[in-house]
């Protein structure tokens, strides 16, 4: 086969291109805002930027795993809001911050378990399942908090470690991204997640337990949502029942999609999600510095998602030699 080598090279090159192109977009945006606004490349602004990027990058790791195996979690932003309350209330009950954190993680994982079990075992599409739990959790958080924010427990040192100081929150995000990248590319869990999303029947015929993979990824996403909510509660110093919400969830999904994860399942990249989150962060931060208002920003995000999706689908089709 004479075309064999070029076939392969074209495939890998295009795949690399897809991730590289979003890096180029990120760099161009960085360059643009550095030139047009002298405040962009300053320490304080970069720190603000890193704090904006971190939450969506962490949650994107979960959403990307779910998107790859053919699901989505709309409720993760509400877990984000609930988890720090669980921690604060446990602490207030005298069990301490650490037990509070562990308890918050358990509750987050349980919510993921419910999302996964209803979706997989009761065969409700995850879009609908998590739309339901979105409202349930939101109502629950508003009820237990009586709708008012409280001060996040713990001293300044704890708060600093968990993201209040400098780039700490971003470092947590990088650590989680690194772990999740490893899980996706170098562990059976990641490979089976791709297999389940790429060919559910085939993966099942090969003996892969698709229910376990999907439910596990729902639990993972919820836990990451809970962790992010707690990091943000420490950083801001206040635990707010209206924090997170659909805004952070859609940002995370958008980060994943802009980074090259297919909404159709079967393929995606964690690193791409981080870069997608950075692109969204730079856009938000840059336009804020430029004095462009939030309404305009939403239009820009919308356009960015559309362009990314169109590119994703068509680059993907070309990559597959016209099939699919």
């Amino acid at each position: 086969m004479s075309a064999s080598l070029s076939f392969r090279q074209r495939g890998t090159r295009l795949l690399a291109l897809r991730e590289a192109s979003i890096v180029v977009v990120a760099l161009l945006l960085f360059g643009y805002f550095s030139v047009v606004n002298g405040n962009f490349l300053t320490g304080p602004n970069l720190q603000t930027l890193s704090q904006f990027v971190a939450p969506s990058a962490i949650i994107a790791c979960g959403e990307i795993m779910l998107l790859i195996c053919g699901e989505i979690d709309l409720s993760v932003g509400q877990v984000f809001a609930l988890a720090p309350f669980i921690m604060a209330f446990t602490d207030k009950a005298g069990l301490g911050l650490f037990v509070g954190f562990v308890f918050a993680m358990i509750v987050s994982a349980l919510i993921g378990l419910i999302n996964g079990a209803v979706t997989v075992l009761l065969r409700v599409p995850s879009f609908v399942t998590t739309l339901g739990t979105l409202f349930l959790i939101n109502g629950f958080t508003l009820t237990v908090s009586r709708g008012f924010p409280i001060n996040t427990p713990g001293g300044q040192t704890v708060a600093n470690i968990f993201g209040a100081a400098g780039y700490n929150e971003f470092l947590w995000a990088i650590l989680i991204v690194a772990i999740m990248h490893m899980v996706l590319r170098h562990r059976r869990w990641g490979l089976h997640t791709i297999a389940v999303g790429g060919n559910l029947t085939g993966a099942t015929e090969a003996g892969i337990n698709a229910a376990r993979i999907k439910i596990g990824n729902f639990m993972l996403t919820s836990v990451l949502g809970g962790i992010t909510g707690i990091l943000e509660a420490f950083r801001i110093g206040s635990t707010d029942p209206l924090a997170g919400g659909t805004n952070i969830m859609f940002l995370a999904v958008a980060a994943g999609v802009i980074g090259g994860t297919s909404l159709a399942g079967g393929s995606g990249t964690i690193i791409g999600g981080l870069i997608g989150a950075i692109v969204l962060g730079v856009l938000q931060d840059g336009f804020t510095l430029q004095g462009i208002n939030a309404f305009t920003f939403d239009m820009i995000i919308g356009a960015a998602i559309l362009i990314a999706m169109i590119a994703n689908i068509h680059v993907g089709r070309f990559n597959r030699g016209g099939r699919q």
Partner: protein
Amino acid sequence: MSAVTGNEALRATDITKNFGSISALSGISLHVNKGEVLGILGDNGAGKSTLMKIITGFHKPTSGQLFIGGEAVSLASVDHARALGIECVYQDLALVNTLPIYHNMFLNRELRTRFGMLDHRAMRKRAAAALEDIGVNVPSVDDEVAMLSGGQRQAIAIARAVYTDAKILLLDEPLAAMGAREAGLIIDLIQRQRAKGDISIIMIMHNYAQTLEIADRVMMMQRGTVTFEGAAKDTSVEALLEIVRREYRAMRSR
């Protein structure tokens, strides 16, 4: 019908299968020897798929007995059948389009390093070696399966089954929707496996000429029963078609 037990890979006797009041199989018997290729022909609804699913452990027969290597077995599950060396290549091939060939070759049987990390290098190397050994040409084991032709995909699926030490290989329409050149590649692949002598192949087919070309023995199924069984070299497409015509006439006059 007494075969030499030492040479017999699989035997099924008087298999029946009812789904509620519908009888899908009414008393099917078949056997396949080591190194033999058995072609099963039949119309839609003849019960071929049901028979296949009984051999792979997916369905339990309503009555009848399966023997593997002369020993009576009752297959509890697909995994149980697999553990006994029965592998099936389904029509959908169970390949994941978005994964490279070498990941597909090792799907759910991944090689790992000490720390439980995927051993990509070893899987790449072994997949390439296994494909070369079996005589399947692919540009690179790094290619996504989506980039391959229908014939290459079928070859990968068969190679995967063979690589797992299948003793009895079931192929569901292995030449379906394939051009002559591609079909030729798969026919060669099947014949090379037969030549090894330790693997038995049962193929579900619908093309009479191709079946007679590849199979040692042919079995015709109609409405849940066996209407013909014999050596491929002793029959012809015309003779097989005559059996079908006779059955149709009998059915319509009923």
